[in-house]
């Protein structure tokens, strides 16, 4: 990864983070049922994921004294709902700096601070959405958030540059222009995710195969993107349990260690139209910082999960994290290079947002944990270092996890 200098250096920056390597472990993971519209509420989905994460590590609800959720959404699990469901009434340390998206990677940083400061001993991070059920009413969901921003309302929406598939189709076309990226390249990402989902019992698309030829024959949704380049909309959620090293060793499953965390931001905020480096993501800033904290290089990564709302977003992050030179993502991802058994860089081995479920990255972390424990559906042989890359609006984040040696 090159040092950021020259004209591209100032479109964003990395957040300064303390070294929290091996100060916190993920000891339990759980996923709710991922479905199309199900009529469930987000808190009911979150509670199912929390129950399963606690079963996974053998802890009781009363052991949990920290709860992290996404502070940016108003329907996430509350302490009151936690207590009402489990019949508990103890104090819970609460943080809104968790949940999914970019925060699925950075929640362990805040948790490490809470553990070190004595605010909590066992912290659970959870995220759930019922956006498939809410879709007809267009309540919640990513579109509603973006439509409220004033410059979008004045200078973007009136021109039909909305919603997100339009942003990323525009970015994809520019990436194709600058680097020769092709539909075959984007299709390789969609096909890899689908193949993994086909083997994952919890994936929404487990029964729907997709070949590259089928992908290429599909019509354009927002040219140059097809439906298959875009994430699902689904109901679902997940949770993971974190604790300190001493406690982590005594639980049901081997701990998975947090060894590096990074966060990068774009100065253009969520105005993608104005991002100076139009075909990059702030992983340019985030990933090198996380890899430095973990003491690893990109080639040390055995399994990678990336926030993949669109195939092009995965492609750009692969480049920006240094897995290949910028602009060479297309030739990097072709064939079975991203498949769990392809001998390349196993990628979104659960199917990702494209084919597993649209639970905004928290299941990506769950998948990395399962890979490092050797219990994934598409298990990567000998996986020891796993990475989740998150990307939300102006933020990218990177979480490096290591299996228990």
């Amino acid at each position: 990864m090159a040092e950021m200098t020259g004209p591209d250096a100032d479109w964003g920056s990395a957040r300064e983070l303390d070294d929290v390597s091996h100060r916190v472990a993920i000891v339990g993971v759980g996923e709710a049922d991922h479905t199309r519209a199900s009529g469930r509420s987000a808190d009911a989905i979150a509670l199912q994921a929390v129950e399963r994460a606690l079963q996974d590590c053998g802890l009781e609800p009363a052991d949990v004294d920290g709860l992290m959720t996404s502070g940016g959404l108003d329907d996430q699990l509350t302490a009151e709902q936690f207590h009402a469901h489990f019949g508990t009434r103890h104090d819970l340390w609460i943080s809104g700096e968790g949940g999914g998206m970019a925060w699925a990677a950075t929640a362990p940083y805040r948790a490490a601070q809470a553990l070190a400061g004595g605010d909590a001993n066992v912290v659970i991070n959870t995220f759930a959405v019922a956006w498939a059920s809410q879709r007809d009413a267009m309540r919640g969901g990513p579109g509603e958030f973006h439509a409220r921003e004033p410059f979008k309302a004045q200078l973007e929406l009136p021109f039909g540059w909305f919603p997100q598939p339009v942003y990323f189709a525009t970015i994809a076309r520019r990436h194709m222009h600058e680097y020769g990226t092709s539909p075959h390249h984007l299709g390789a990402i969609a096909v890899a995710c689908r193949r993994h989902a086909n083997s994952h019992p919890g994936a929404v698309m487990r029964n729907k195969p997709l070949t590259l030829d089928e992908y290429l024959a599909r019509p354009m949704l927002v040219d140059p993107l097809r439906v298959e380049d875009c994430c699902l909309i689904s109901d679902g959620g997940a949770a993971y349990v974190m604790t300190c090293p001493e406690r982590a060793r005594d639980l049901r499953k081997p701990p998975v260690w947090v060894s590096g965390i990074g966060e990068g931001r774009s100065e253009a905020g969520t105005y993608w139209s104005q991002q100076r480096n139009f075909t990059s993501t702030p992983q340019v800033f985030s990933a090198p910082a996380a890899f430095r904290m973990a003491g690893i290089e990109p080639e040390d990564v055995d399994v990678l999960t990336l926030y993949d709302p669109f195939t092009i977003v995965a492609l750009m992050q692969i480049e920006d994290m240094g897995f290949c030179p910028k602009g060479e993502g297309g030739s990097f991802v072709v064939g079975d290079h991203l498949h769990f058994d392809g001998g390349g860089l196993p990628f979104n081995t659960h199917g990702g947002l494209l084919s597993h479920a649209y639970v905004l990255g928290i299941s990506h972390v769950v998948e990395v944990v399962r890979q490092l424990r050797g219990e994934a559906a598409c298990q990567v042989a000998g996986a020891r270092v796993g990475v989740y890359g998150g990307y939300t609006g102006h933020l990218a984040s990177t979480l490096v996890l290591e299996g228990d040696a």
Partner: protein
Amino acid sequence: MSASPLPDPTLEITRPFFEGAARRELRIPRCRACGVLVWYPRPRCPACDADALAWNTLSGRGTVFSFAVVRRALWKPFADRVPYATGLVALEEDRDVRLVTTFVHCSPEELAIDQPVRAVFEPLRFGDGPEVVVPLFAPLA
């Protein structure tokens, strides 16, 4: 979400942009101190931090930076306009300044990145609602 995406031309942050469009002028703020174009509008120049910005009338010419062709209705207000091409124009005066626009007077198949385009000023309206004149972009030739 089903509300009309018509811009509010009286909103202070972008009022000169829409006033200019009504007079068939493309207007963008320029820093009086260092001369850079500042987009999106903001109170201070991001290059030199001066707070003296003035709205300038530009040539209205530029090139296609990138675009998407919306082939299936994703969003109700634009459902009856598909297929349409929407994206970004890089302005002649500073190619790093990008305007979001709709490309008009050509079929999406005729459009290409780096193609020269010019602003055309046309009324925008949704359903039976009011009109606001906005800059759209068309092939230069």
